[in-house]
């Protein structure tokens, strides 16, 4: 009963959320730093080399976490954008806007590390295969979301227009994810999936999953920080902001 009695909407008020986010950020930072250290020690120091790719495979410890985050952050962003659109919830729209730059950065990292990994293993930095192309489309969706938002002066109008773009763009995410199954791509299939046992050595897998959690912590911390900036900016005329400063 106590969970039901809790007022979950309490934190939908930007003022409350501002305080909550402020007290949560240090925890995400600390756990992010600890997980990164453990993940890198395992990935770069302890995990054995790969018998096919040699040590170039060690790019996986940032490539896969960044690629997963790029897709996940898009879904979360579109979710909050939709909530903001449907329920006219200010905070949800601010959350969506806070996630977009980090999502774009994760997409860039996935593409960059992919290119640098492709050169020694495929012999080329880039090919127009389905996986790479749809991930590039994801980067343009993030850019589109941000520039559309920036081009409209009235922020609530900007929130709504950008939300529509975000929602339409969701269709791209499953296409990225299943591209390696649907088409014959140069990109390898999933090494880790929900339906079958992973095809990786345990230490490699452990290092990679820890790095995935580290990227989660980073993304949450950074998005919360950006959301606090946005709240300050948009609520600048509220009395609590004046007291806060």
């Amino acid at each position, binding site marked *: 009963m106590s969970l039901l009695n809790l007022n979950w909407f309490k934190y939908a008020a930007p003022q409350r959320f501002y305080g909550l986010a402020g007290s949560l950020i240090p925890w995400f930072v600390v756990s992010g730093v600890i997980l990164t250290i453990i993940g890198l020690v395992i990935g*770069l*120091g*302890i*995990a*054995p*080399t790969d018998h096919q790719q*040699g*040590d*170039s495979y*060690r*790019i996986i410890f*940032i*490539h896969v976490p*960044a690629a997963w985050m790029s897709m996940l952050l898009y879904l979360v962003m579109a979710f909050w954008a939709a909530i903001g659109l449907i329920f006219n919830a200010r905070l949800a729209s601010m959350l969506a806007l806070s996630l977009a*730059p*980090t999502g774009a*950065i994760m997409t*860039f*990292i996935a593409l*960059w*590390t992919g290119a*640098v*990994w492709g*050169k*020694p293993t495929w012999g080329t930095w880039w090919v127009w295969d389905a996986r790479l192309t749809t991930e590039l489309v994801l980067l343009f969706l993030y850019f589109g979301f941000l520039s559309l938002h920036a081009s409209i002066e009235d922020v609530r109008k900007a929130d709504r227009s950008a939300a529509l773009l975000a929602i339409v763009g969701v269709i791209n995410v499953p296409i990225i994810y299943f591209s390696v199954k649907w088409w014959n791509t140069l990109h390898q299939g999933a090494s880790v999936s929900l339906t079958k046992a992973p095809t990786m050595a345990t230490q490699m897998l452990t290092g990679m999953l820890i790095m995935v959690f580290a990227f989660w912590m*980073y993304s949450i911390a*950074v998005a919360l*920080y*950006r959301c*606090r*900036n946005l709240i*300050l*900016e948009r609520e*600048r005329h509220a009395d609590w*902001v*004046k007291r806060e*400063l």
Partner: protein
Amino acid sequence: MYWSSFSDFIQMGGYALFVWGSYLVTIFVLIIEIALLRSRNKALRKTLISEIRESVRN
């Protein structure tokens, strides 16, 4: 530990350019993101505080 020496570790089995090229760019990009956010926060606080002072004076 997988490596037998520090220089082995740096050389990454001959893939140093690719492995470190990925890691360094990633770290660089994330540091830029954090730095931009912090400077935005500082600038915002400065503007808002001066706005508040202005409104108190008038």
